């Protein structure tokens, strides 16, 4: 008798968060349909207005510490021969994801591309269909993950967090994310799950899969009470959204470990400040997350094995210097350091001091340093 009762309470709690979002998405979709429908009924050319995503309209917002869209708008009108096709694709995609959301199913970008063909709505290529998804995100002001369209790439999470599923067939079921030593895949089910119980007190995001496994083997999750996230390179948006949710809902600080080169540094930066590509979306970035290395200065301080920076690396560093997201003291200092030492190192470089060094020596020192 106890168990069902407990399950019931959790379920109500679940509805409050994930159902809420789902309902919001569905009602936005419906009002999009209603808008076009009423235009057509009044013998007007249907059109949709949305913020322009052209470079000129993307600004860095100091308050939210991310890129946002300015006040320029574009109109997609069926009256314009160049717009009618993308507009039709937009409405079709809308009705496609509406169905997905209703049935609690998920889809990938690739799926959308192929499904369109069944409706004689073929997209020229994947890029075109991805573009329409981005339009739909802009119009609905929801990330595609909210309407159940996920990218192919998946990253992973490991640690002492118990989640509760909301996806059909698994409603109410729970899982501890430390149950599988390879980590748990961050897919649609996990993204839509509620956080039931968390014993960790920090989140550590790691760029490389090898190091993620090392951290699990070295029991970093126990030693440091950490949730480990493998970003698998540039973190997918679902992962970035999850980090933000965990940081906010569970109140956990976030530390990001990447390779010591401009590209690794940017992986950390995108988790913190978001990307220009997603300027039309909110709640994907975690402004308070901290870049925890590997720094350029670490290459010198720890005498890490290193390679010279390539011309491309250096060009990238000069670009980052001008990027408003790199405005902070730490970023500036490290970019200068890179340009000074002209070398880069991978996270694995710490192995020269033994496999446990990074966990036993480097990590505690850095965490202490960052507070």
């Amino acid at each position: 008798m106890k168990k069902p009762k407990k399950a019931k309470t959790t379920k109500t709690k679940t509805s409050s968060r994930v159902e809420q979002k789902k309902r919001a998405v569905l009602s936005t979709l419906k009002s999009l349909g209603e808008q076009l429908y009423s235009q057509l009924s009044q013998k007007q050319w249907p059109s949709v207005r949305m913020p322009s995503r052209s470079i000129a309209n993307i600004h860095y917002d100091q308050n939210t510490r991310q890129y946002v869209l300015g006040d320029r708008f574009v109109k997609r009108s069926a009256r314009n021969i160049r717009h009618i096709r993308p507009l039709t694709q937009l409405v079709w995609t809308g009705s496609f994801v509406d169905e997905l959301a209703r049935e609690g199913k998920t889809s990938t970008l690739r799926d959308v591309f192929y499904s369109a063909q069944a409706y004689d709505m073929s997209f020229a290529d994947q890029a075109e269909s991805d573009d329409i998804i981005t339009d739909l995100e802009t119009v609905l002001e929801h990330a595609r993950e909210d309407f159940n369209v996920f990218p192919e790439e998946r990253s992973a999470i490991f640690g002492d967090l118990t989640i509760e599923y909301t996806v059909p067939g698994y409603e109410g079921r729970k899982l501890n994310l430390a149950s599988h030593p390879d980590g748990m895949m961050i897919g649609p089910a996990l993204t839509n799950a509620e956080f039931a119980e968390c014993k960790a007190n920090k989140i550590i995001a790691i760029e490389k899969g090898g190091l993620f496994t090392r951290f699990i083997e070295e029991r970093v999750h126990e030693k440091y009470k950490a949730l480990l996230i493998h970003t698998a390179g540039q973190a997918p948006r679902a992962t970035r959204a999850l980090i933000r949710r965990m940081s906010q809902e569970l109140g956990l600080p976030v530390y990001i470990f990447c390779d010591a080169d401009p590209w690794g540094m940017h992986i950390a930066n995108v988790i913190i400040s978001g990307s220009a590509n997603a300027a039309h979306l909110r709640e994907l970035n975690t402004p308070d997350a901290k870049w925890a290395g590997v720094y350029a200065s670490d290459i010198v301080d720890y005498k890490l094995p290193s390679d010279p920076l390539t011309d491309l690396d250096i060009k990238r560093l000069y670009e980052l210097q001008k990027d408003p997201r790199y405005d902070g003291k730490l970023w500036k200092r490290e970019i200068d350091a890179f340009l000074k030492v002209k070398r880069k190192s991978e996270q694995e470089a710490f192995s020269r001091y033994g496999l446990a060094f990074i966990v036993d020596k480097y990590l505690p020192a850095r965490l202490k340093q960052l507070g």
Partner: protein
Amino acid sequence: MSLQEVFQEISAADFFYRNRDIAGFTNPTRAIYSTIRELVENSLDAAETRQIPPDIYVRVSHESGATDGPGTYRIRIEDNGIGIPHDIIPSAFGQVLFGSKYKLRQTRGTFGLGGKMAILYGQITTHSQATIMSSTGPTKIHEYQLTIDIQKNKPIILKHKTHPNEARWHGTVIDFQTEADYTRAMPKILDYLQQTAIVAPYANITYVDPRGRLYRFERATEQMPKAPQETLPHPYGVDVETMKRLIELTKERTMLGFMKTHFHRVGRTIATGFLQQVGLAPRKNPKKLTPEEIVQIVTAMKSYKFLAPDASCLSPLGEELLEAGITKELSPEFVTAYQRKPSAYAGFPFIVEVGIAYGGKIEPQGGIRLYRFANKIPLLFDEASDVSWKVVNTEMDWRHYKASPDMPIAVFVHICSTKVPYKTVGKEFIADRPDVEREVLNAVREVARRLSLFLSKKIHMAHDRHRLDVFQKYLPKVAEFSTKLAQKAESPDVAPLLKSVLKHEKAEESEDDQDENVE
């Protein structure tokens, strides 16, 4: 061998036999083509002279020998022309250069030899006689079987009989055998017949080939151009030989009378002025001119200011008929024809007519297809040496007229003149004389301008159609999916919006274009 034999005078028939290349009888392939061509042209002329819409039947049948090389073939041609007076028939067909022409007229026959050369060639190659049947319309039809005595240039009549002519038939039938390489000549013969049909849209031409296949080129109109009139030679175009012949034929006793009677647009005043300039007494007897004086007159004629030749003697096809001919054979999407005003070169009047056509049976061939005609004869050989080819391919900038080489475009150039300025004795291409070239260029430009209007309209219409297609494809889908999204039962009607698509045109095109997402 006596001296007499060496300097033996050769007859006209003998001369042409020995020089048959000039007349287009070089080899069995070319010979059959020239034979058909000469006979068809004679028949057309015979009908047109009296405004009779021509009905021409040609049959070529295999008699003996090879079919994949030179063999013996039998030619039969029937027309409904004016016919030939029965007493002249033997000479008309059995004597080369019979009936000296001292007047000029726009005719098809390129040499004035016409069928004679064809019959001569047939006789030489197959040793057989020709059968000629003709009537000018009275109660009798005369039939002759004859051969040509080559050395004496005389007809030998083998048989002559008459048939009753109750139907008052007029026309000519020629039937004879000749050596031919038909298989190799076939494509050109068919081209020739089709192009003749283009330039004579008022003619019915029926052709039965050696395999019994029937080709029928049906007339599209009964309307015919006015018949060409005979005209006197213009002083500018007279050479010493013509002058000698005129002097021999003339009945005039004074130079003044001679000038007035035998030359185009020469009256009393002009004749007097001219004779004064040359220093000849107006009353001098032309028969007593010395060879030196004849040369002097001919030379002086080139520079004296005579009146320009009058083109009334020419028989152009006319814009309407040229369009009708092109339409009936090629059924193009667009056709137009343009006739220039008469002009003259070296004392010979000429008129240029040009047509242009797009689409239909014209195939794109990587360039403009050119059809050339002179005095209503198709010219099929040596195209690249012709003045029209030069104009169409080197002097016209077709892009300027929105035309491109991959389009199905054909240009038709017809030059008619009392003396077509052929470049060589082969008479297959026209010289690029500046006067002629200018007229052709101006005419081609005019029709090209009309074509470019058509092409812009076509592009415009294709654009409109494309617009409508796009809206027709997508707008119903917008309605369908938004109905689904809005959870409504019935789709809104998009027909009124679609109807307005073509009306509004481009008005809104530029309005919302500042968009385009850059990521």
